[in-house]
Structure formats: C-alpha cells, structure tokens
C-alpha cells in the first residue's frame, strides 16, 4: 500500500500547490479513498452513503483519480482530468491538426504545438488543451518553454500520459 504522501506528491506534480484546494473546499469535506488499488476522490457525504453498499458490489464512487501499479507506483488516470484541468498551473495548447494524433496516444511534437504557458519547467506535468480550450489530456513537458522555441519541428515537446481517447480505447481499465 502506497502512502498517501506519495500519492499527493504525484498529484502535486500535476497541479502543484493547488492540490490543497481539492481538500479544503467550501462545499463540504472531500477526501481521497483507496479501494482495490484505485484512488477515488469523493465527498464525505457521498462516502457515507457509498459505505452501505457491500465492497464487492461497489464499482465506483465519486471520481477515480488513478491507481497504484503492481510496483506501488501511482498512475494518474484520465478520469482525474475533471479536477486537474481547472487547477493546472502549466498548460499547453495543440493545433487542430495535432489533436487527432494526441487523442490516439502519441506524444506532442513541436509542429503540433499551438501555445504553451510561459516558464513551464522541464519534466513538470502539463494539461493539454485544444485551441478551443477543451482539455483533452495531460502529460509531462520534455522541455522548458524556452527550449521549445529552438526545438526541431519533429522534437517531442510533451510526453503523453493520458488522453480522453482512452474513454473509448480502454474503457475496461478505467476502474
């Protein structure tokens, strides 16, 4: 069982200091609960109700954030996007021509890069948006913003982690 600390570290990678906004909410207490290696973000109120359902029969409650792998590493799932996107400090926008590539699970290359947040550090989590501001996934920046400017058109800018295409591609493994 991974420690909650580790989990939060990873989360923080994605959304930084804003993670505390997820815990301290004005509209009730929310918490993270782990069930069958999956981590769910759920309000206390909903949690109490969900507890009446036998664990065997409970499929999911609240929002699934990710899962612990067999090697006890935490992996964010695309299902967490609902919460990550609004709080993400670093964003990247892809051109319409590159949307499809990303939705099929490919990395983002320089030529598909539309916009990028200033001062994005290397190897920090970024949320990927379309040019019409629809979040379509997240990944890890492989270069800083400055480096991107001078990068080769075919160089990878963002490593793919998760994209909304997974709702179709791997529906079974989401939970």
């Amino acid at each position, binding site marked *: 069982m991974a420690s909650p600390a580790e989990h939060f570290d990873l989360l923080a990678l994605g959304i930084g200091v804003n993670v505390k906004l997820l815990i301290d909410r004005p509209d009730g207490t929310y918490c993270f609960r782990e069930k069958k290696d999956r981590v769910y973000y759920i309000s206390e109120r909903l949690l109490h109700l969900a507890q009446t359902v036998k664990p065997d029969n409970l*499929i999911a409650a609240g929002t699934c954030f990710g899962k612990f792998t067999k090697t006890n590493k935490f992996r964010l799932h695309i299902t967490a996007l609902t919460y990550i996107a609004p709080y993400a400090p670093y964003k990247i926008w892809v051109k319409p021509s590159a949307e499809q590539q990303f939705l099929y699970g490919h990395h983002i290359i320089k030529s598909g890069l539309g916009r990028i947040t200033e001062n994005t550090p290397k190897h920090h989590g970024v949320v990927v948006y*379309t040019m019409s501001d*629809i979040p379509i996934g997240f990944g890890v920046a492989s270069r800083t913003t400055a480096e991107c400017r001078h990068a080769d058109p075919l160089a990878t800018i963002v490593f793919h982690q998760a994209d909304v*295409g997974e709702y179709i591609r791997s529906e079974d493994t*989401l939970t």
Partner: protein
Amino acid sequence: MGRKAKFDETKKVKKGPGRKARKQPDPVFKKELLEDDTTEKKLTHRQKQRAAKRAKKKAELVEKRKALKQAKKNVAKQKEVTINDEGDNSSDEETPQGFTDDNKEWLKPKQKGKQKEKSKPKTYKSESEDEVDEEDDSGNEDDDGSEMEVDSDDDTSGKKKVGGEKYKVGTLDDLFKDSDNENGEASSEDEGADSGGKLEYDSDSSAAEKYSDEDEDEDDDDDDDMLPIEKANIKLKKKQKIDKQLADEELQLNIAKQDVFAFPSEEELQNPASLQDVHQRIKDVVTVLGDFNRLKEEGRSRCEYTDLLLKDLCTYYSYNEFLMEVLMQIFPVQELVEFLEASETARPVTIRTNSLKTRRRDLAQALINRGVNLDPVGKWSKVGLVVYSSTVPIGATPEYLAGHYILQGASSFLPVMALAPQENERILDMCAAPGGKASHIAAIMKNTGTLFANDANKERTKAIVGNFHRLGVVNAVICNHDGREFPDVMKGFDRVLLDAPCTGTGVIAKDPSVKTTKDQKDIQRCFNIQRQLLLAAIDCCSAKSSTGGYIVYSTCSILPEENEWVVNYALKRRNVKLVPTGLDFGTEGFVKYRHHRFHPSLKLTRRFYPHTHNMDGFYVAKLKKFSNVIPEPFKDEDDEEIDGKTTEKATENGDVDGDSDEEKPKSESKKPVKRPASADSAQPQQKKAKPNVQVKPNVQAKPNVQAKSNVQAKSNVQAKSNVQAKSNVKAKSNVQAKLKGQPKPATENKPQVENKVQPLDNISKKKKKNKKNKNKQNVAQTDNVKSPNTSVNTSQSPNAQGKKKKKNKNKPANK
C-alpha cells in the same frame, strides 16, 4: 444585407444610432425610376383615335352577332313547333336542344333516333353522349365560357338525363312505329348530308368521333363571326373536354375493377409470391379491412382476411407469427402497417448536450464547425440535438471525448424528464447501464445530491463508469446489485428511475433480431422480472420525502404486458398512485387491452411510437408513493390477478382491503385461456394462502388447470363469491396481524422456498448463493410477497440466466 432602399417615401425610417456609429444614408432614386403604376398615362391623340376605332368595330360585331342569333332562334322555334306536331317524344328537355344552324333538319331527327336506340340498353356511354349533345347545344347559345361550368356539372346533368330517358322509355310503347319512321328519316337525311359534302355520321362510330363531328358542325355555324384563331381555340377546348371525359370513364372502369380484391386461392397461398406481390396484397387486404362490408368477397369472413394479412406481414417484414399477432392486437391494421414500416428504418441520431460541461448553443456551433449538420430535437427538450449528417464520426469527436455530449435516443430523454429530478435529492437509477439516463439525471441535479446508478450486469457497469467520468458526473455511486435486492441495500430514495429490461419491441429498428426471437415465454419472463423490479423500486422510494416520492417506470417495449399490466400490478400491491408524467405529447396508456381492464388512471401514462412520434417505441409511467406501508400481499391470487379482467376498485391501490382479492379469482378463470403458460402457476400460489382459505381456492384452481372452458369459469366465479367473502375477512385479519414481518408458519413456506429460490439464485449473482442460503427462508418470503409470479419461473429456471443476458442485450438499444 445591403442598404434598405426607400421605395415608399411615405414611410419614414427612424434615424438614430444603430450598430454602426455612422450609417450610410438610404439610396436615393430618380423620380422617373420611382414612377407609380397606379397613375394612368395620358393617351396621345393617335392612340385615342385608334381606341375609338377599335370600340366602334367591336360594337358592330356585337350587333351583327345578335342579329344572327335572333334569326336562328326564330328558325329553331319553327322547327320545334313542327316536331311537336309530329307528336314524338317532345319532352321539355328536348326543346332547348334544338340545333340552330342550317344542319338542324338532319341533325335533330338523327339525334332522336340515337337516343331511342340507346335508351334501351341504358349504359353510361349513352348518358354521356346525351350530356355532350346537350352541352354542345347550350354552348352554342351561350358564350363559350360556359363549358367549364357544364363540365363540373357532368354528374348532375347525367342523372337528370337518366330521368328524362326514363320518361321517354315510358312513352316508347305508344310511339313505336313513329320511332321507326324517324329512323328511316334520319338515315335518308344522313345520306343527304353526306352528299352535301358534310361528314359521315355513322351511328356505330365511336363516341369521340361523334363529338368531334358535332363540334365541327357548330364551328361551321359560327364561321362567319369568329376569327380563325377563336375557332381553333373552341375546337381545342372541346377536344380537351372530350378527352377528359373519356379518361374519366376509363378511370371509373379501372376503379371498379380494383375495388374487388380477389381472395387468393389455396395454390396461390402455397406458392410463395414475390415480395412485391405480397406487398400489394397487404395493401389490398388493408383496404378491404378498412371498409369490410362493402369490399369483402362474398362468403369470406373477416378472420380469413386477417389471417391472410398476418401471414403476409410475417413474410414481408420477416416477423415471427407470435409477435405479429401480438402487434395486431395492439394496433388497428392501418396503423400496424405504418408501425412496421417505421420499424424498418432507423430513427435519426440524436445527441444530448451535457449541461455540466457546455451549453447546447456552444456545442452546436462547435459541431457545425466540424462539419456536422444538426438541429434542435424539438421544443420539448432543451438539451437534445438531431444529427442529420456528419462528415466526422459523431462518437469520436474531441467534444464527445471531452464529455460535451452523449449519443442518446430522443426517447431516452423522456423518462428522465418525467422523473424531474431536483437538486440535492437522493436518486436511484435501478437499471442504469450504460449510464445515459443516469448521467442526464446528474446533469439536471447539477452534480448535487446523490445518484445511485445500479446495474445487474457487472460488465456493463464499466460503461457507466466510463460515461460518468467522461461527462464529469461526480456525485454518483455505481454499484452492481440485482435490482430486486436493492431494497435490502438501501431505501429512502427521493426518486427512483426504473428503465426496466424488456423485449425491445419498440426498438426493432435498432435490433431486428427481436422480430424473430421473441415468443410468449420471453415476454412472460420479461414482465415477471419487471414486476419484481418495479415493486423493488417502489420499496426503495420513500413516501416521506418532502420533494419526491416518485417512481418512474419506463421500457423500450410497446407491449401492454410489459407496460400497463406491470404498472397495474404494482398499483395493487403497493401504496402508489399514478400521476401525470409531465410529458405533453405521446399517446395515452391503454385502459383496456383485449380482455384486460386496467385501472382508469393508467390513462396518465404515456406511450410513444416510432410511426407517430419519430422516436423509438417507448413507455413512461410516473408513480407517486403515498405511504411506506406495504399492504398485505395478496399472495393467494397473485397469479389469478395476472388477469386484467379484474375491474379495479379505485380504492384498492390506496387502502389495504380485500376488494382486489375478490376480483382476482374471477379473472383467474380467464387468464389461462390467454396466456396458457401461467395456468400451472395457480397451484403453487394457493399453497401460500392461509390454511383455511387455502382449501377452497384450491378447488377453484383445479378446474382451471384441468380445463379452461367457460362453463367452468363461471362455476368458478360462483364458487368464489362464497370463498371471497371468507378470504376477505381472512385477508383483513392478516393485515392487522402482520404488517411487515409476515411471520409465516414454516411448513407453509417450505414448498415454495424450494420452488422459488432456485430461479432467483440463478438470476442473481452466484457469489451470493452461499450467503443467501442462510437466509433462504426470509428471501423466499420477501420474494413471494413481491411477486408470486416467480412460480412461473420455476418451470423455466434453466432459462432464467439466458433471459438475463437477453434483457441486457436489449437494454443498450434505447440508450
């Protein structure tokens, strides 16, 4: 979008700042261009002169014509007088027929002769000829414009003529020899005419020829005062008229021929015809059935026609006979064909905007930019869009993946709209997969409150998870229970949506396998499960909820067995009443269906058909729970109750009283006739009853099972009335004794426990089996309470699981 020209100067356009700070002034036109049509130009001198000349000429012409006419009339009068003298059939009608030209001498007698010849075989043809003659004459005297009028009056004048002819026939006897004479005259005159360079006038020439001949005669009359072009015009008009008349005649003949639909012979039925022939035959039979008394073939009964229709429909639309028979009982033939036709074509693709993430307008704009052609689904929905065509896969656009919309049939909006969820409520969707309706509920609740999405199939719950996360639903708990056990898990929901598994007869377009695979047993299995689910749904709901206490029951089937009957069943067993669904369209639910007589309030439920509403066949009923007390179950007559014959007391769903008990035994007798499969179920049911009561009902039950003749049914009823009185008392005492627990003597229950638990377990998760064994008796009791009909299942227990699968298969269809 250009400037608006001010053609009309009278209307002043208000000046003022518009969107543009500086507006372009209205264009100004020259006076000449704005010339008004109404003012008349002054004529020049020459023009005036010419006009005067024209007028003078015209006047002269009119004068000339008048004079001519006068002369002709005089001649005609003289002629008439001579005819009268002859003493022939000088009826009043003849007089205006006088020919007014120089040919009158030979024309008149000829015509008369013709009439006499034809008056004996009074065919349509002769009538029409007469008509035409008359018309021609009148056309002569009046102006040519009168032709139209005459045309329209054809029928009436024809009838009049018939009357006239009759009169003539009456006089024929006396004047027989005269007519001979006349004929002779006519022929001689004919010759004369021929010699005179006129046209041949054979009596046997076709009608058209004659018409044209006469026309020419007339034309000759007016030769003097008409321009050639006028003559040509008149000729053309006449010709057109004749053509039209001939065409009409032909049409009449054709219709007369078509009207008679020949019932196919045995061999014809044996040898399969081509599909087109079958289709034509279907049409014919439908028309025959539409006006049976007039169109039927002598000696054929309605049954024969309906049987033929049934077979043809099965062939043409490839249904199995059972399902077609059921459908024929639901729809009148005309509507049935429409329904079948509509079931062949898929409904338009509709999508539902996810109001949690976007607005419909924004979504529509985004999709239009992607090359999707769409429109709002209708006034009744604020979130639906119809997709007409699309250049991209509508289920894989970035908007779809980002959860801005979900593909959902228009009919699937309805139950959720009927449920009308409120914010901060606790709501249960009992059969939620794949989560379309459930996510709609969550969207309406704006992610507040709690939504329980349950589905019995674990594989399909994954679809719920995927859809919920995609659509951003965060207030949901997704669980995997058998819906019938859900009251054990949790109760006290404000609203419950039960979109029950069904045979899918409303969504045949989506899953054509329904046509051939469904039979009586499938339907029976479905409605048994539906009843249990509905009772469970009602149990889950809380009547004490301040905002809710509503249950919505919906299916994508159109069979009353799965809809009205199920609701009717629940009305009797729980403290619920029907309330309006809040859907302002759709047809009312059935109150009568074959031998069933449902509760009158079932009118409040709504049916939707593919052919009338252009959405999948659907049924929606909204129930309000007004008491959490579960009435003493009418265990004994559950099966019997199955019959809708029970004329419900309005009270019965409200009060805990035995009224409905009494009714049920009666119906029992009929039930087996209709649905034989349930006949044997009566027996086990009786066991449940209290020992005292038990004895008598058993007696009743037996005759039912053995033979279902009406006589026995009657005797049953009589016997029952006695029993009922007693059982009533019993039932009431039961109510008092045990409101909920129903502590039953174990001995009574035992046989049933074995019967019923088995099928149930088969259906439910196998895991549970072990655990349940301990509680087996309790379970059995509750199940009995819920639906004694499970006994029917015992016979089908091996199939139970297969059915479960089927039900699941059908489910996605309406999502």
